[in-house]
């Protein structure tokens, strides 16, 4: 008998724990219903939280925007998370973010998935990024062509050794071209693939796939044999960036904010912010602010090119 009563008591306790958890769950859904479209959720202090997730290329400028926006609109807080362009877009499809950052355009397949879920993704161009090719500082190569990059990175490409490019790289006794690439949900990975390897192009197997732009740059800086690609914003003093020419006759253009703005640099790409439907309210204000001179100066300061020729940035 005692046994039975006690186990009832135990179940009661367990039930209580779950009741508390469930109760708090209900509180959440109530609040969600009050929020607009379930997106911008106002917490009890009437603070509006905008969820911003995605591209590792954009994550640092997103952080700078969020940080600066505190002083512009103290009642609006922007939560920033990285993970890659693919992460942001799938979160947009799940309805868990307000803004998805992406360093590539959404694919048709993703658009269809969004529409089937009743989401109409709206694309906003927030700036441009020159995708720099990174080499070890000891590497004597000063210019490279898109064709060479394709032959190095692309499937079936013939370039495997630095000597094939006519250079001898100090410290790289194996002469092997060590290819550094990105994980496949990265927008940088997708953009490089489309622009350099061509529409049908695939990457050659055997590259080192890093999980972030900064990782690529650091590995290249430490590896004499290496070549890598990443946003220009991740450049530092320990690497070298060759100029890039599109075709053998074309002029060789060095990656810079200026050459990204005038689109003369061949591998510069737009950086996108996606919203679900036309933004309204606090979300619209935030996006307008990003495209204002203040927001665009911040993107410039982080090493990216603004959408329009920038006003005077202090």
């Amino acid at each position, binding site marked *: 008998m005692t046994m039975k009563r006690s186990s009832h008591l135990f179940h009661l306790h367990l039930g209580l724990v779950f009741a508390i958890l469930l109760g708090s769950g209900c509180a959440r859904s109530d609040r969600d219903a009050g929020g607009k479209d379930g997106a911008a959720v106002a917490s009890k202090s009437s603070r509006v939280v905008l969820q911003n997730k995605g591209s590792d290329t954009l994550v640092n400028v997103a952080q700078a925007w969020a940080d600066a926006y505190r002083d512009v609109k103290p009642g609006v807080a922007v939560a*920033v998370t990285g993970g890659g362009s693919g992460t942001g877009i799938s979160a947009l499809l799940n309805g868990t973010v307000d803004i998805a950052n992406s360093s590539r355009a959404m694919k048709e397949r993703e658009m269809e998935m969004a529409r089937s879920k009743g989401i109409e993704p709206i694309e906003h161009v927030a700036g441009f990024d020159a995708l720099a090719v990174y080499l070890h500082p000891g590497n004597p190569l000063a210019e490279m062509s898109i064709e060479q990059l394709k032959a190095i990175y692309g499937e079936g490409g013939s370039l495997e050794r630095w000597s094939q490019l006519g250079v001898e790289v100090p410290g790289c006794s194996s002469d092997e071209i060590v290819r550094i690439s990105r994980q496949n949900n990265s927008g940088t990975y997708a953009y490089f693939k489309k622009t350099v390897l061509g529409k049908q192009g695939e990457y050659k197997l055997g590259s080192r796939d890093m999980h972030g732009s900064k990782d690529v740059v650091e590995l290249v800086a430490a590896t004499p044999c290496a070549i890598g690609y990443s946003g220009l914003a991740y450049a530092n003093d320990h690497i070298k960036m060759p100029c890039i020419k599109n075709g053998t006759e074309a002029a060789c253009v060095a990656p810079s904010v200026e050459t990204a703005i005038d689109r003369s640099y061949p591998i510069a790409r737009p950086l996108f912010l996606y919203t679900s439907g036309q933004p309204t309210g606090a979300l619209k204000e935030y996006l307008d602010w990003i495209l204002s001179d203040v927001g665009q100066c911040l993107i410039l300061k982080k090493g990216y090119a603004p959408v329009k020729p920038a006003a005077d940035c202090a």
Partner: protein
Amino acid sequence: MFEATERTLRDAQRERWVKAGLLVMTILLILPVAIILTVLVMRGAPMLSIEFLFEEPTNGMTAGGIFPALIGTIWLVIVALLASVPVGVAAAIYLSEYAPDNKLTRLINLAIINLAGVPSIVHALFGVGAFVIFAGFGTSILAASLTLAVMTLPVVIVSTRESLQAVPQAFRAACWNMGATRWQTIRRVVLPNAVSGILTGVILEVSRTAGETAPIMFTGAAFFLPFLPESVFDQTMALSLHLFVISTQVPNVPEGLPYGVALVLVGMVLTMNAISVALRTKLRGRRKW
């Protein structure tokens, strides 16, 4: 009169070699810990200051302090504890004091052992599915802490059950013979005698929770937040994730900064462990057997 034969001498020689070999292995074991701590203290200590602990990160998280991450870690740990300790201790009491030795119980025990072996990244994905999306908590402290709680439940259950079983059976028998029910016995005799072990398990859980990155990365921790969490439904920054992002994603971070963050995190964990050891020693002194 004892005289060392050749064989005895050889055995003695072998004994010395074995002892030396085992000693070397033990030192090898300590070496990585010692190196990690030395490097962390040497490179991280110059970063530490009151401002570092209590100020917000500035200049694109390359300067300033770590306060939001520190607070976030504390939130995550406390909420995870509130969720896992009642469930874990209750389950352990059931398994130790009530459960008959049958197939179901053995199955539960097996499940607990397997739960302990599940990699944290798998727990993370489970957390996304179960708490973030299905339960509708969104990316929040609640979702992250519940994920951590699920992950650390086996630790709590196993350590609690072990400390319950360490209480001599005679104590229970004596109590029952006085006419006490099982629950009265548990509450008045078993639990007071097992409390030191239970606390140790709980504190070990805390230290593990504080350091985890994968389970909170997708469920509640953010790269950057311009506010401090106010409720369990807010997202938060956390020390472990902060360390990860400033070492892999933020450009131009001063070299000492990641070491400083790592030192704070390790310091937190070691302090908790030290408290655990001290508490256990103190409470064990009170044992009646």
